[in-house]
């Protein structure tokens, strides 16, 4: 098991290298350069070339790639922003923490809302307790999170004046962004849990449990639920990607200083160091979450556990 975890963590190295490579490649293929954007249209081409050289932007992309990786590994230096001339890491880290906590709240909240409702609607299939939550979930799943965010803003900030409409000064300013990022995945979790639960309720081993004389409660909560949760766990982990996308929108909408909105802003400036460092941090976060999901999966599914045991031996 430990060996498996270490294997997976080691796998982070090639994936991060791959991420950096792809980013440099994409950057080198897109038009525009940071010096022109910084100096404006009035500057002469010679000035632009000179600034690009100073920034290190004019190097061939393979050389940039190797230099970047070297600096990152040996000096733990993510470089300096083309745009603000500040250390990238210092610029990014506080924003990264904000985004990760928003996404984390999103995962927890969407699971806490989606999974229990999913189970409940499956158990009460075809009753009102099923149709109404399912219909609401269906509706919400179709609303983009920025629309939802604007509706929340309108209701709670503009009309009711209960919650601040921007910033991260207090706990209360986190409420609306958290809702905006977690409600759409919650609706998705509900639908996913419901279908997974319905499927496992129909399985033969559930009938076997009933044939043993087990109560309906035991049948559902012990036999059906445990099996139904297996795909749900994976799904929750996968939803992190969507949550980070949702977080970018929420950051913009609620003026939260997060990493997503920072990256989006800097893409227009071709601020390579910031874009790359931000993306690396997000992909590391994603990989670690997927590893956690796999470990949880192994914990709850003996068949997967057996597979890891073989990796060990």
């Amino acid at each position, binding site marked *: 098991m430990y060996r498996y975890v270490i294997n997976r963590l080691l796998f982070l190295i090639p994936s991060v290298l791959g991420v950096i490579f792809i980013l440099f490649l994409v950057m080198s293929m897109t038009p525009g350069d940071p010096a022109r954007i910084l100096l404006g249209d009035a500057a002469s081409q010679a000035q632009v070339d000179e600034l690009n050289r100073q920034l290190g932007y004019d190097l061939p992309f393979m050389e940039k790639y190797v230099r970047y990786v070297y600096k990152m590994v040996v000096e733990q230096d993510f470089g300096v922003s083309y745009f603000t001339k500040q250390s990238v890491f210092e610029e990014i880290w506080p924003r990264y923490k904000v985004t990760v906590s928003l996404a984390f709240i999103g995962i927890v909240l969407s699971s806490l809302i989606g999974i229990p409702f999913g189970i409940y609607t499956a158990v009460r*299939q*075809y009753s009102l307790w099923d149709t109404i939550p399912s219909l609401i979930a269906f509706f919400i799943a179709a609303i983009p999170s920025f629309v939802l965010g604007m509706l929340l803003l309108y209701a709670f900030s503009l009309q009711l004046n209960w919650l601040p409409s921007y910033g991260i000064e207090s706990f209360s300013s986190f409420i609306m962004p958290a809702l905006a990022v977690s409600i759409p995945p919650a609706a998705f979790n509900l639908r996913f849990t419901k279908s997974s639960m319905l499927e496992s309720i129909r*399985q*033969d*081993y559930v*009938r*076997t*449990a*009933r*044939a*043993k*004389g*087990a*109560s309906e409660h*035991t049948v559902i909560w012990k*036999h059906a639920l*445990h*099996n139904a949760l*297996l795909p749900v766990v994976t799904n929750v982990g996968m939803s992190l990607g969507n949550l980070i996308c949702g977080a970018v929108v929420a950051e913009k909408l609620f003026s939260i200083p997060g990493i997503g909105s920072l990256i989006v802003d800097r893409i227009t400036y071709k601020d390579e160091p910031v874009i790359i460092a931000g993306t690396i941090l997000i992909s590391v976060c994603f990989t670690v979450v997927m590893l956690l999901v796999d470990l949880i999966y192994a914990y*709850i*599914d*003996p*068949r997967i556990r*057996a597979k890891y045991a073989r990796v060990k031996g």
Partner: protein
Amino acid sequence: MKNDLILDIKNLRVIYQTDLETVEAINGIDLKINKGKTLGLVGETGAGKTTTALSIMRLLPEKTGKILSGEIHFDRQELLKLSPLEMRKVRGNRIAMVFQDPMTSLNPVMTVREQIAEAIKLHNANLSNDEVDQRVETALSMVGILPSRKNEYPHQFSGGMKQRVVIAMALVCEPDLLIADEPTTALDVTIQAQVLMMIRELRDRIGTSMLMITHDLGIVAKICDDVAVMYAGQIVESGTVFDLFTGEKRHPYTQGLFDSIPSLNTRSNRLKPIQGLMPDPSNLPKGCCFAPRCQHCMDICINERPKQVIEGTHTLLCHLFADSSAAPAPQEGE
């Protein structure tokens, strides 16, 4: 006489109702199983065998399956009138069931010990954990599995072993009636024989009665005392094994089943199946259900439902014998 019966089903009718159609799965069947005896329920896929078993267990799909009429007497209890709680005490304790596919009938995330122990604890709340463990081990060794493997999960067992576990689970409370729903269909032939012999031995040791659902006449000959042949939700022929295998009169469907078994003694290049398909159970013919496939089909067969012909222990549902037995009318005379 009546006290000898462990199971007595009278005029059971079951339908599956969906928004689209009504499937007449069981159309008024009568079944009797004597204490300590084994009844074989034979018929092709879709004849209603499993539905019969699920009706006895009252495990029909809740939303669609409906028991329209009939009585199921089990050892002086009327099962259809029991409350869900009372029924749960019967299930697994007094009537146990072995399902068709051992690959899917065990919970993949629970150890074998947990699953067998669950059956014990449900019906013996007073046992201590050690006693339960003891009984799990006894049950496993009874079906020929090393008790040391009790903490393993179903995926670590082969198909035949899984079916043994399922059987151990069914027999661990020593039920009065064991319903075995094609217990060997999913297994390969050598394992089939092993499992069948084991079922027979355990049945004799525990003294349980059994309803053996199968489509294999060989299994019937080996294990059963009585047989009922089911076709399109009806019992078309029933009697002792001797009535069926050696009797003079045979329902054309039963005859077809026998004929479809390939024989080693006569050389033939082709198999002899029963021509045609079973009628659509949502749209049964108005006469005899087997008429469209029957070689002896007469006008009356198409228009009128046949009546039961009773000759001692042997009953037939066919116009062919209604005529002939109408002449030597006294039925008890045989």
